[in-house]
Each structure stands twice: as structure tokens, then as C-alpha cells.
């Protein structure tokens, strides 16, 4: 990977800051007061007491994802069942899927479903050959039915985007009630806080650009299957 450092003296940033300061009517940077803190009472739409998994499944369905709960021992079998049902032969697999659904690699192999090559010369383009992406997620947000995906080693950005079907595994213990509760969890999770890409996914890829008619699967997956692994 090349990471050339651009010349910084003429990148325009110093001139921009000077113009901003002039417009604000001061010459030197002020001491920055604390910003008004986000007001929990105004913003919160789900409380810690809310039954998170049930609410999450309900809201995920409302935004157009197919969501269900599954016991840990049955998770791998359920993933393979979902893939077979959709006629999937090649998957883009996240490394963390196995942790969410123990035995997944073995069951996939037994079902004759292959994982596409990763990190090869084709790079992300290999994902274009996959029929489905199977990923764990960092967290779920109950209030909006949102999946939280972070990039990292073995966690490609494209697995949840490029194939026409995304199968997402969510640990029940990682469901937070409200988006407000997500950021502390992100900061606690190794790798997530400094991830190059963090994506909130709330529904299948959709558009209503042509006469307001809703069409799913415009660029990304038209179907998102969410499996909430209970008690994990």
C-alpha cells in the first residue's frame, strides 16, 4: 500500500482557517468551550429496559429486512438452510461468522457452498462472484432495527454490500436499545473505534427515484436475512 504524504504547506488548510477566523471576527483560535451535550431526554427512543431482541426483530422487519431469532447450537444450520433456500453456491464470508455460529465452516463445506477468495489479486472484485455475504456484526440497534458493521482483518466492507443477499448474525448481548448507546460500545470494542469503515445498515438497498415506486436491491443486496443468536 502506498501512502504518499501530500505537501502540507500548500494544501490550502492554513488559508482556509485564516478566512474562517476573519469571518468569525477573531485573529487567534479561542479556547474551545464544551459543546452542548446531546440531550438524552429529547433524543432517546428506546430505554435500557426495553426488550431489546424482540424490539430489534420487530424494527428490522419494519425497514424491510427478514429477521428471526435462533439458538446458538442451531445457528450454523440455520445459516446454511437460508443459503440453500436462496440457491447460493459461493459466499463471501467474514471471519467472525464462525464465532457467532460455531461449526459454520464445517456445515458450509458439507453443503458444498464455497467461500470466494479473499485478499487475492482481484481484491474486492472477487466479491462480485459471490451469491451471498455471511457476516457477524459488531452490534444491533433495537430502536431502528440497525446492523452495525465494522471493517477489519477478515471483515471486508464488500461482503455486506456486493452480493445480492446478506446474511447477518447478531449476538443478542450486542443489541443496544438506542443509537445513543452504540458509541460507548464501539469505543470499548478492540478494532472498532479505529476502523476505517463503520456502517449502519437499516434495511435492504433501496431506491424510490422513479416516480416514488420503492424498488429494493438497486446496488447493494435486495435481501437482508438477520439471525439474532439468543443467549449469546
Amino acid at each position, binding site marked *: 500500500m502506498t501512502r504518499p504524504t501530500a505537501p502540507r504547506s500548500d494544501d490550502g488548510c492554513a488559508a482556509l482557517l485564516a478566512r474562517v477566523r476573519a469571518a468569525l471576527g477573531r485573529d487567534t483560535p479561542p479556547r474551545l468551550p464544551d459543546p452542548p451535550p446531546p440531550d438524552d431526554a*429529547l433524543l432517546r427512543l428506546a430505554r435500557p429496559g426495553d426488550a431489546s431482541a424482540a424490539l430489534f426483530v420487530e424494527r428490522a422487519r419494519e425497514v424491510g429486512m427478514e429477521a428471526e431469532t435462533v439458538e446458538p447450537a442451531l445457528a450454523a444450520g440455520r445459516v446454511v438452510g437460508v443459503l440453500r433456500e436462496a440457491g447460493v453456491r459461493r459466499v463471501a464470508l467474514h471471519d467472525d461468522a464462525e464465532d457467532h455460529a460455531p461449526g459454520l465452516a464445517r456445515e458450509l463445506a458439507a453443503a458444498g457452498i464455497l467461500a470466494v477468495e479473499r485478499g487475492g489479486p482481484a481484491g474486492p472484485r472477487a466479491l462480485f462472484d459471490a451469491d451471498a455475504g455471511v457476516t457477524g456484526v459488531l452490534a444491533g440497534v433495537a430502536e431502528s432495527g440497525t446492523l452495525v458493521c465494522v471493517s477489519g482483518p477478515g471483515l471486508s466492507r464488500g461482503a455486506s454490500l456486493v452480493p445480492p443477499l446478506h446474511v447477518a448474525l447478531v449476538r443478542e448481548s450486542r443489541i443496544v436499545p438506542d443509537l445513543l448507546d452504540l458509541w460507548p460500545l464501539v469505543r470499548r470494542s478492540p478494532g472498532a473505534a479505529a476502523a476505517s469503515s463503520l456502517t449502519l445498515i437499516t434495511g435492504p*438497498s*433501496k431506491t424510490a427515484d422513479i416516480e416514488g415506486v420503492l424498488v429494493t436491491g*438497486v446496488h447493494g443486496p435486495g435481501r437482508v436475512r438477520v439471525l439474532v443468536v439468543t443467549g449469546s
Partner: protein
Amino acid sequence: MKGRAGPHPLDVPLPHDLRAAAGRASRDVALQQFVGGATLHKDRGRRETCRRAFGERYDALRRHAGAIKQHTLDHLDAYLERFIARARESGAIVHAAATAAQANEVCLAVARRHGCRLCVKSKSMVTEETGLLAALETAGVETVETDLGEFILQLDGDAPSHIVTPMIHKDRAAVGRAFARELGVAYTDDPRRLTMIAREHLREKYRRADLGVSGGNFLVADTGSVVLCTNEGNGRFCTGVPRVHVAMVGIEKLVPSMEHLTVFLKLLARSGTAQPLTVYTQVITGPRRPDEDDGPDEVHIILVDNGRTGLLRAESRELLRCIRCGACLNACPVYRTIGGHAYGSVYSGPIGAVITPALRGLRDFAALPHASSLCGACFEACPVHIDIPRHLTRLRAQIVEQRIAGWRERAGMRLWGLALRTAWTYRLAAWAQRLVLRRLARRVGRRSRDSARADAAHRPGAWIHAGPGPLRAWTQERDFPAPAARSFRQWWARERGHARAPRRDIPGQRGTPA
């Protein structure tokens, strides 16, 4: 892909002739149906979604969101400095551009350095503002708009007419014709099939592209992140597959932290499209790390000024709070009637009517602040509590003060001001006005055009349909009502005894309008 030849809808001669553009739009029945129907639907969706989610808290939340943005703008220098430092720490390369031309030049330099040939681009208002697509194409970089609406507009050589729904002014038949003509596919007007044709076409472009260009909905100062909100997923392709990603973002997009970002995420999609969140909200922090499978090797962030520091003055600063949700467009009775192109600028609707004159010059866009009835629907719809009507009247005052308005208008306003100064001048002016208008109505008055109207309004001479002088501007478009036989003051004097008697509110009775 080259757009079709022909004048670009937003390449308007200056000063912009809003009256002519609005006249054309108001005669276009199809346009009014598409835009009117779509905006009403969106406006209703926004109200219902916000009420369901926030209930009584909604108004306080809008003020809160406005206060956070205002704080960020009040200290924009410090937040920019922090953002630039954190973004660099994450490995992104940060540039700043004073003008549209400079911003495009920075992007072209990046493309040249990497020898880029094919660019996939996601929807971005700031790149519309700078004309980046044309600049890239001129420099020999094939550039494809990937948002479905923008893709269709590019095929048709057309321009977006709505901040969120760029092709709100087109119907499915127009899309079918454009696809048949430009992509060589069999004509269909089925939205699902058209969308799938675009999907297959664009997948090939994503696969081959070596440059991805995006805008940014937010910049997070604490982490140096660029945040992109999309529904289609094209933004994720543009920022994830090509080896170079360039994000062009206005300097007003800053928020202090991820927690503050949450405030705006909760409002943006609800206000724009009645969704809890856009389908994809992507937080990009630097290029891919060495141990990652995908993502760009280089991320460039171009911070664009292009007139924004001019708006940062105290009097107009709150306009930079705008998060481009499009709610004020959908709520505006004027936008609903004339659509976006009539505004002659990338930013249309109420927010366009106040920021376009500020960004591109009041003299060239002096008609825009008048494209409003000051009904206040935009203010009520704004999730960051921008008092748009106040800015419309402020700009109207500037138009008079800076003598941009013609001498007739200024003289008229001066006379009006004199008439309002004392009670007797007011009475005199009102008497003279009634005298002239009633005489005029007897000469050129006629029945109402609307036969369903009440009898009084239906009698001959009730409406003036061809006024002379300054009244012509009104009667060109609609009739002007002739004054009633008795003025309100006369009526009041007779009904209530003496008009100068001390005022008392009489329970159960309401005044009759003159």
C-alpha cells in the same frame, strides 16, 4: 459517458429571470403533477414520522439540534483544526479549496497522479455546485453518476431539481426513453425493470473504476471521519471498491463528536424521506489499513469554501446549519408549483432562495428572496430550526438598501412608508387607493373566472383582470379583487358607533374583513 448536447437547465443567463422561469414551470402541467404529488407525499410522511418518534419533544429537539450546529459554526475554526489533525492521523490526505475551480483542480490533480480513467461518483450537492463531473470529463476521466436518479439525469443531460430526490421532475416514461436511447435496451417503463437495468450497467462500472468520488453528509471533528448517508448503497461502492477515494465536502458539515452525529442522524432521514435512518450510514475514517481486504489505498478529503466563509458572518451564520434534508422544499407551496429548476441554481426551494443569493451574489439572484409567500412552512419543517422567513425578509431589505430593486419599486415602498407614518396619511392613502381601484374596476373589471364563487365576488366588476402600471405584474397571472363598496373603517364606524372609541373585545363576535 457524455451527457446529451443542449443547454444545461441550470446554466441560466444572469441576472436570473425567475419570473420567466416560474412562468414556464407553472404552464407545465406534467411537471406540476410530478412535483406537487411527490412533495405532498414526502411532507406528510415527514410530519407523521417525526410525530410518531418524538411527539411533544419534537420542537425542543429541533432547537437543540440547531443549537449544536450553531455552536459548531461559532467555533468552526477550532473544529476544523481538530478535524484536519484527526483525519491526517487516520491516514487521510486533507486539502482545502477556496473556490469551486480550486476544488475541482485538487480532484483532477489526484486523478492525474494515479492515472485514473474511470470515475464512479455518488450523489453530492457540493460537486454539483463546483461542476466536478464536467471538469473530470473534460480532463478525459470517464465519470459515471451512480445514484439512480443522478444516473438518469446524466443520461438525459439534465440537472437535479431536488436536494434529496434529484429527478422528482421526471416520470417513468422519460426514464424508459432515456434508457432505450442511451443504453440500447428494449423500452420498458416498469420502475423495477428499469432499476435492474441500471444495476447491471453500473456493476460493470464499479468493477472497473479506479477513482471514487463522494460528498459527505457530516464531518466528525473528534475522529476525523467523513459520514455518508445513502439508501441505494452506491456511496459504499464508490468509497469502497476503487483504489482512490476523493470526498468533496463543504466546511459547514462539521459536528463535534459521534454522540452529536447521532442527533442529526435521528433527524436527517426522518425529515428527508420519513425513514428512521438512511439504509446505509457509513463512517469513513482514513484509507484501508494494511491488514484489510478491501477499501481504498488513498482517501482525499477536499474541504470546500466556495463562498461559505461569506455566509459565516453573524447575520447569516445560521444558514450554514442546513443539513440538506430537503424538508423545506417539500413543505413550500412555491417549490411545489414551480419545481427546482426555476430557481436557476443547485440549491432550490426556501433554503436555496436564501443561500443562493449569499453564495452567488444578491444582484444576480435578487428575485429568489421574493419566491415565497412568507407562510413559514419551511421554518416549521426545518430540523435544525433555521428561521428561513426572517432571512428572506432580511435579503429583501438588502435588495432595497443596495438599490438592486428598480427605482419604481423603491419609490413605491417610500410612498407606502410615508402613508403608514401617521393616521391621517394612512386614511388619505387608503381613500385614494379605493377611489382609483374602484374606478378601474368599473372600466376593466369583470366577473370572477371561477363561476363557483359566491354571488358578491361573481358580480360584474368584482375583479380587475388587466391592471395598468405596477398592477400589471399581478394581473398577468391572476385577477385582482376590486375593493368592497364600503371600507372596513366605514363599516367599523357604523357598526360600533365611533371608530375612535376605546377598543374593547366583544365576546362571541369577530370582525369582518374589508
